[in-house]
C-alpha cells in the first residue's frame, strides 16, 4: 500500500488550509494520447504545482462531459485502454508523486467489477479519492460505506440547481472535499463563470467546514483567481488541460500543460 494517512485527500486539504492556499486540481483522461504520456503528465503536473490530480477513467458514455473530454475518452478507448492498465499506471507512478490521486469514473465500470473488488483494486494501486459524476446522494450509500471502510474518500458533487436541504445532506456525506459544479451543464471551458457560484459557495460554507473545490468550466488563470477570491479551497481544471495535452506531439503537450499548471497555481497563491 502506497497510501498513508498523510496522503489522504482530507489530510492534504488540512495542510493546504493551514498555509492559506487554494489547491489546484488538474484533470487528465487516462490513456490520451497514450498511457506513457499520461504517466509522464502525472509527473509533470506534480512538479508544476498540482496539489491533487484527478485522473479520469475513459468511459464509453460520459454523460457529464462536454466535447473535449468525450473526445479524449473516445481516443483512449480506441487505443484499447482498460481499467487495469489505468490502475497499473497509478501503481507505478503514484509513489513518485506528492499530489494524491483522485480517480474520476462513471458508475458502471465500478458496478461491473463489483464495488468491493473495485475499491480494493484502486486502493492497492494507490488511489486516495474517488469522484463518480453519475452517482447522486440517493444512490451513493452502497459505495460510501465500503469505501470508508477501506480508506478511499468518495467526494460528492453539488450543483447550482441543488436546493439547500440537499446541499446540507450531500455536504454531510461527502468525503475529502465537496465538489461544487460551477455551471448547469457538462464539463468544458466557459468564457466566464456565473456569479451565483460565489453566492452558492458562501451558502455551502454555512452548513459545512469541509473543503470546497470548484470545477466544470474553469478555462484560465483569471477564472482560477476568481475561484480563489470567492474563497474556494480548490480549483479543478479539466478540459483546458486535456485540450492542451492533446495538441501537437506528446512532448509539446507535456510542455504546454507544465506551463499552464504553473500559471494556474500562481493565480491561486
Amino acid at each position: 500500500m502506497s497510501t498513508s494517512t498523510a496522503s489522504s485527500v482530507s489530510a492534504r486539504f488540512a495542510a493546504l488550509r493551514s498555509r492559506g492556499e487554494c489547491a489546484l486540481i488538474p484533470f487528465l483522461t487516462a490513456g490520451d494520447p497514450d498511457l506513457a504520456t499520461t504517466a509522464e503528465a502525472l509527473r509533470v503536473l506534480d512538479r508544476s504545482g498540482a496539489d491533487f490530480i484527478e485522473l479520469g477513467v475513459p468511459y464509453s458514455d460520459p454523460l457529464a462531459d462536454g466535447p473535449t473530454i468525450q473526445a479524449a475518452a473516445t481516443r483512449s478507448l480506441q487505443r484499447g485502454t482498460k481499467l487495469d492498465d489505468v490502475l497499473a499506471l497509478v501503481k507505478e507512478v503514484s509513489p513518485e508523486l506528492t499530489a494524491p490521486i483522485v480517480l474520476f469514473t462513471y458508475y458502471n465500470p465500478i458496478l461491473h467489477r463489483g464495488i468491493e473488488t473495485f475499491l480494493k483494486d484502486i486502493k492497492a494501486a494507490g488511489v486516495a479519492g474517488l469522484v463518480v459524476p453519475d452517482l447522486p446522494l440517493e444512490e451513493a450509500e452502497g459505495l460510501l460505506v465500503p469505501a470508508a471502510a477501506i480508506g478511499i474518500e468518495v467526494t460528492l458533487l453539488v450543483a447550482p440547481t441543488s436546493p439547500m436541504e440537499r446541499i446540507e445532506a450531500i455536504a454531510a456525506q461527502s468525503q475529502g472535499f465537496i465538489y461544487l459544479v460551477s455551471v448547469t451543464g457538462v464539463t468544458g471551458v466557459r468564457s466566464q463563470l456565473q456569479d451565483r457560484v460565489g453566492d452558492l459557495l458562501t451558502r455551502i460554507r454555512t452548513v459545512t467546514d469541509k473543503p470546497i473545490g470548484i470545477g466544470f468550466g474553469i478555462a484560465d488563470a483569471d477564472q482560477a483567481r476568481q475561484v480563489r477570491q470567492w474563497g474556494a479551497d480548490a480549483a479543478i481544471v479539466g478540459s483546458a488541460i486535456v485540450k492542451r495535452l492533446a495538441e501537437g506531439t506528446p512532448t509539446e503537450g507535456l510542455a504546454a500543460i507544465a506551463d499552464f499548471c504553473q500559471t494556474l497555481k500562481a493565480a491561486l497563491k
Partner: protein
Amino acid sequence: MTTTPLPQNSAASTTANAPSAVPDALGRFGRFGGKYVPETLMPALAELEAAFWQYRNDADFQGELDHLLKDYVGRPSPLYCAERLSDRYARPDGTGPQIYLKREDLNHTGAHKINNAIAQALLAKRMGKQRIIAETGAGQHGVATATVCARFGLDCVIYMGVHDMERQALNVFRMRLMGAEVRPVSAGTGTLKDATSEAIRDWVTNVETTHYILGSVAGPHPYPMMVRDFHAIIGQETREQCQAIWGGLPDILMACVGGGSNAMGLFHEFVGEASVRLIGVEAAGEGADTDKHAATLTKGEVGVLHGAMSYLLQDRDGQVIEAHSISAGLDYPGVGPEHAYLKDTGRAEYYSVTDAQALDAFQWVSRLEGIIPALETSHAFAYLDTLCPTLEGSPRIVINCSGRGDKDVQTVAKALDLR
C-alpha cells in the same frame, strides 16, 4: 462479474401478484431503475415527479388529455382480428391461435409514441417549460414530439444519431416540416444511445427552462413509471375490447422491445392477471450469438445506462457495447428497468428474432393483411413462427401493432436488394 450495490426492496421479493405496485419511492423495480444522473438533474427529476403525481389524477389535466387522445390522436385504436394471419398457423382440424392486432399504427403520426409525447407536453406546459428536447432512434418518437410541440407552440429540439438520420430520412423531413430542429449526433455509434446521451447533456445544461420528453420506459425515475403510465391506455383499451369481443382476457400478449415502451403499455394492465402470458421480442440483429445484436435482456448483464440500472450490453470493463439491429428503434444496448424486473421475477418472457426474420415478417404481414408494419413491430410478428407451433388449442394472441412501416420501405428495399 456483476454485483448489485443496493439492497433489494420488498417489492423484489414478492410474487407475480404485486409487480404493478412497482416502482418504490426511489424508482426501483426490485433492484432495477433508480436515478443515476448528475446532481444537476436531481432537482428537475423531483420537480417532474411531483408534477406527475399532481396532474395524474387532476380532472382538468385528464380531461384535456382524454380529449386530445380521442380527437387528435384518434383513440381508441381498434383491436383487429387478423384472419389471414391466423390462417397461417391454423391446424388441419381447424384449431389454431386467433391473432388480434392492437392497431397503434393507426394513431396520428403512425405509432404508439404519441400517447406519451402528448401527455408529457401537457405536463411541460403546466410546469411552465416552453422548450422541449427529445431523443429519437427510428424517428417515431421524434415525430410524435415535433407534432405535439407544433400543436402546443413549444420550441422543439430533437437529437438523432447521424446513422439513424440516414436510414430514417423520411422522419427527419417530417420533424423539420413541423418546425423542430433536428440536431445530428455523430459521437459514438451515431445511433439512439448517443442521441439519448446528448439529450441528457442538453437537459443538464438547460434544465431550468427545458423539459425532456424521454421516449421510452428507460432513463432515470420517474421516466420509466411515467412513460409506462402514459402508454397504459393501450392495455386498458385492449382489456375492454377483449371483453367486448369474446367476453374474457387474452391468453398471450406480444410486443417488440427496444427500450420497451409499447410492450409496457400493453403489458401493464395485465401484469396482475396470472393467466395472461407476456412475451417481449428483442432484436437479435445478425444473431444473438454474434457480436451484432440488440438482445439486451437475452444477452446483457446488469449495469447502469442513461440513469437507470437494468440489463445492458457491455464488455468486461463495463464499457457499453454497440448494439445492432436493422430497426433503428430497437438499436439500443439498454432496456427499460421494469422489463428487467419482469424478466427476473419470471412474470414476462423475452425472446429475440434476427434482422432476416424481421424482414421476412415485414413482407408476409404486408401480403397477408394489407398492413405494412414498422420494422420494430415486425420483430413481434416474426416470433409468431416460433411461438405458434408450440401452442395448443385456439389461444387468443394480441400483438401490439406498435407502428406503421412506411418509414422503413427504403431500408427494406435496400436490404432486399442485397440478398
